Structure formats: structure tokens, C-alpha cells
């Protein structure tokens, strides 16, 4: 959508071979609207357009022979600055030790499905155990068990309501049966649900994860920043996975999360099937947010 907005304003702009300050300010306003429509967080947008405006009002753009192209370049470069220019890997233990990956996030974001997807990627060179520590959602354990079966991964859970005990016993089970990696699925929870956040802190303490991955819907709106900041503050997350990228959402949450927490988005979910899972490439998202 920004391309069509841009085409609109920049058609008028590019007829002029010099941009006035007013042109720049109009261009900046269009960017603000487009980013907000793409669900980029309000405060992130405000800071972003300030940077763009300062640079755009500088010598480089105003005195350039093709100021419009230069303006677009400023916007694009600033987006890439924020998103980073390379992909971040998950860090697993060396051979001989068991890696632990903990999945956390809000209700319905895609954690259970994504546990199986990540397991599917890892099984290529390690024996992976999926563990259901979701003792709240009806049939959550059945859901992960079915996915483990469909994906050829190990599965562990216990038939009671203590997630911490399940995680503790899962570690022992993984050791006894010589698994290389454990992926822990937890119940969705709100960052403002104190007892449930304390429960996650306990799970972290007991299992000492190598990677804590926050799973978020790509279509998340303005409050995703508060949510991720909270989870990060309490658990020190290692990375983000954005799901449902196959929807037509613009995905501004990606920019907001990266800008405000600095944590990298490591993977994206691109559908309901196990194979619909990819590494995240920051440069691609800049294009999508700009529409």
C-alpha cells in the first residue's frame, strides 16, 4: 500500500527535480500513515519518521539529482537498519549434551504447531523429543502427540496438572532415552497473568533452556510491544517466531518487536502444515511492511 501511496505523492514529487521542505514533510506524513496501517507500533512509527525526516531534510536528499529516489532509499535503509541485515540462528548445545528449547506466547499464537515444525527441522541430525507442558487447554496434549506422530518425533507428557513436574521428568526421560533436543510446549498465557508468568519463570529455572522462543501472530496489533517486552523482561527471551505469515497481514509487528526489544525474529510460520516453516530474512519484511 505504501508503494501505491508513494506512487501518488512521488509522482507529484518526481515532476520536480528539487524537493522542498514541504514535499519532504508530506512524504513523511504518508510514510507515517502507511506504517500505522501496517500495524507498526505508534511510538516506533513516531521515532522512525523523525529519523527519516532529519535525514531527508539533509543535504543528501535535497541536493540530490533524483531526490525522490534518494528519499525512498532513506526510508528503505532506515527500515533495514532496524530489522538487521542477516538471519539469526538458534544456539544449540554440542553433541553429548541435551539442548532445551522453551516455547512461550499468548493464547492461540501457534506454539503447539510450531513446536512440531521446529522439531521437523532439527530431526535431520538429532533425535528430538516434543514435550507437552500445557495442562490447561482441552486436548492440548493430544494435539502435540498427534503432531509428533505425524512428524516422526518423540513425545512426552504426564497425565496430571503440574507443568513443572512434567518438565522435570521430561529432562530425565530425554536422558534415559538418549534424545539430543527437547522442545517444551507451554500453555498460552497473558503477560499480565501473574501466577502463570511465575510458572514460566519456574519452568525456566528447572530446565535451563538454551533457547526461549516467543511465538507471536504476525497479525498482532499495537499491544504486541507491551506483550513481548513483558515476556522478555521476565524470561530474557532468545528469539521470536512469527506465525501465520501466509495471511495477507502486513506484519508491522516484526518491525515493532525488533525496534523495541532488539530480539531477532528467527523463523516464520507460513501455513498449517509441518513443512510451512522458514528461516526469517529481515530484508524481505521491509518490502512487505512498505506494501
Amino acid at each position: 500500500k505504501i508503494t501505491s501511496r508513494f506512487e501518488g505523492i512521488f509522482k507529484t514529487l518526481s515532476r520536480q527535480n528539487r524537493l522542498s521542505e514541504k514535499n519532504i514533510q508530506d512524504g513523511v506524513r504518508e510514510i507515517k500513515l502507511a506504517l500505522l496501517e501496517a500495524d507498526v507500533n505508534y511510538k516506533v512509527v513516531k521515532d522512525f519518521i523523525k529519523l527519516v525526516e532529519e535525514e531527508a531534510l539533509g543535504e543528501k536528499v535535497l541536493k540530490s539529482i533524483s531526490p525522490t529516489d534518494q528519499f525512498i532509499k532513506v526510508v528503505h535503509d532506515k527500515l533495514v537498519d532496524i530489522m538487521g541485515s542477516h538471519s539469526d540462528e538458534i544456539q544449540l548445545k554440542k553433541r553429548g549434551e541435551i539442548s532445551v528449547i522453551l516455547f512461550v506466547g499468548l493464547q492461540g499464537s501457534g506454539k503447539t504447531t510450531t513446536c512440531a515444525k521446529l522439531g521437523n527441522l532439527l530431526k535431520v541430525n538429532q533425535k528430538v523429543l516434543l514435550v507437552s507442558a500445557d495442562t490447561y487447554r482441552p486436548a492440548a496434549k493430544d494435539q502435540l502427540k498427534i503432531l509428533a506422530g505425524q512428524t516422526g518425533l518423540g513425545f512426552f507428557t504426564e497425565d496430571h496438572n503440574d507443568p513443572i513436574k512434567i518438565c522435570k521428568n521430561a529432562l530425565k526421560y530425554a536422558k534415559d532415552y538418549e534424545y539430543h533436543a527437547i522442545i517444551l510446549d507451554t500453555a498460552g498465557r497473558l503477560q499480565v497473568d501473574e501466577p502463570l508468568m511465575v510458572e514460566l519463570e519456574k519452568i525456566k529455572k528447572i530446565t535451563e533452556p538454551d533457547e526461549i522462543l516467543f511465538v507471536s501472530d504476525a497479525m498482532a496489533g499495537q499491544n504486541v510491544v507491551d506483550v513481548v517486552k513483558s515476556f522478555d523482561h521476565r524470561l530474557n527471551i532468545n528469539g521470536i517466531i512469527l506465525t501465520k505469515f501466509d495471511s495477507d497481514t502486513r506484519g508491522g509487528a516484526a518491525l515493532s518487536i525488533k525496534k523495541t526489544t532488539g530480539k531477532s525474529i528467527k523463523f516464520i510460520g507460513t501455513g498449517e502444515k509441518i513443512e510451512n516453516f522458514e528461516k526469517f530474512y529481515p530484508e524481505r519484511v521491509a518490502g512487505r511492511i512498505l506494501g
Partner: protein
Amino acid sequence: IFTKKINDPDFFDEMEETLIMADVGVETTLEIIEHFKAYIKDKNIKDGEGLKNLFKQSLQDMIPQVTFDYKENQLNVLFIVGVNGVGKTTTIGKLSHTLKNEGKKVMLAACDTFRAAAIDQLSVWADRAEVPIIKQQMGSDPGAVLHDAIDSAISKQIDILIVDTAGRFHNKANLMAEIEKLNRILNKKIESAHKETLLVLDACTGQNAYVQAESFHQSVQLDGIILTKLDSTAKGGIVIHIAHQLKLPVKFVGIGERITDLLPFNRDEYIDSIL
């Protein structure tokens, strides 16, 4: 915001920020502010309570207060649709409990035959709400389950048949075709039934919720929205744009994960929560 005066330069900036942060969306926010500015000029109010009430009024004009329209002495069908993970199955559990407590005979149709453990999940809710459920194996044809459920609902003289469907994105043509097919089955097989198609939206979703409402409405004529996860810090302000532009009212809100965490939509309380 309403502790400031209108001529305070920050007043409209703060109003813009409050509305955008509530996911009301840019276009609607600007519209509300323009509308409000006109109102103020008209009524010549400068600050405080008068301002707040005027603002609430301008929002009320955009949001209808409508409830689920239950028809006595006939079969009512609630057709529940929406994208993945928004809370359809859980909401159906809650609706069953509420409606059963109102003395109605409720039955569920497990038409999500695709997702792992979807039928098991709905079955748990059916047990909790103590209502019958019509289901088949995972992988069976959702249309076949629906036919089965309708026959059963008619023969058992059910008051309300609630149909659970698989989550699907509106930009997937084959999945939207499936939901259109289920809708046609309902329309053809029980012309005399009162049917309401409700789209479930997650309050944490951003502007894409509007596109979801618009697309689903085009496919299966929605009658309203159920807004879930309002117990989160999200406000779901996009429903204002949806109400204003598509004329679709919010009928229920989900405020938690327990069977009792469902309320009829209360417009005035909702507006208060945004401000």
C-alpha cells in the same frame, strides 16, 4: 486526556495516540477526530466532563448495540467462522453453557475435521457444558458432519445448533470455498431455521481484522462479530471501523478461558474501556 483543555496543543495528539494504540486504525481515528472537532464547535464545550461525554457520544454513533436474535419454536443455527487460533472452539463451549443455562436445548457440530485434536477439544467443551455433540473421524468431510448434525438437531428438536469450523485465512480461495459450501448446505437444508453467522476476532489482532471481516462478509454474509481475548491488554478497536463501515455489530465478547468468560457486548462499557 479529558483533564486537558481543547486549546491545549497536546489534546488532539493524545487523542490520536489513545485511539491508534487501541487498534482503532488510522482512517477511523482521523474520522473520529474530525467528527469530534465539528461536534465541539457545534456545542461550544471547552474541557472536562462535557468533552468526555461528547466524545463518548461520537463513538456511540458509530457502534450499534445489537444482541443475538434468538427465535422461539424453531431451529436456530450459530455458524462460527474465523481465522486460525482466534478462539472459535472455546467460544462455542462458552456459548453452549450460557444458552443451556437459559433453558435452551443446545447441540454442537464438530465441523473442524482438519486440525489435530480439534474434535477432541470441542468434545471436552461439550462434556463441560453438558450438551450433545455430532462428530465423525478427523479427516472426514465437514459437509457430511454438518448434514448429520442438522438431521440430528431436527429430529431431537434442538433449539440451537452451534457449528464449529476449522480456522482459515480469507486469502486462501480453496478454504473460503469450503466455508461457502457449508453455508450453502445450511441455507438449502434448513430454509426455515434462523441462522446467524458470527465471525470470531481476536482483540490482539491489528488492522488485518478489518480485512478478515470484509472478506468473510463477502463469502458468507456475516451477522455479527464475537470479540475474544478482551482480558488481554488489547482493546480490539478495529471493531469500530468494522461496525461503521460494514455495519457488523459485536454481539459477544470473550474475557477469559473459563466456560463462564463470555458476555453480551455492552457498547458503553466497551467505549469506556478504550478511553
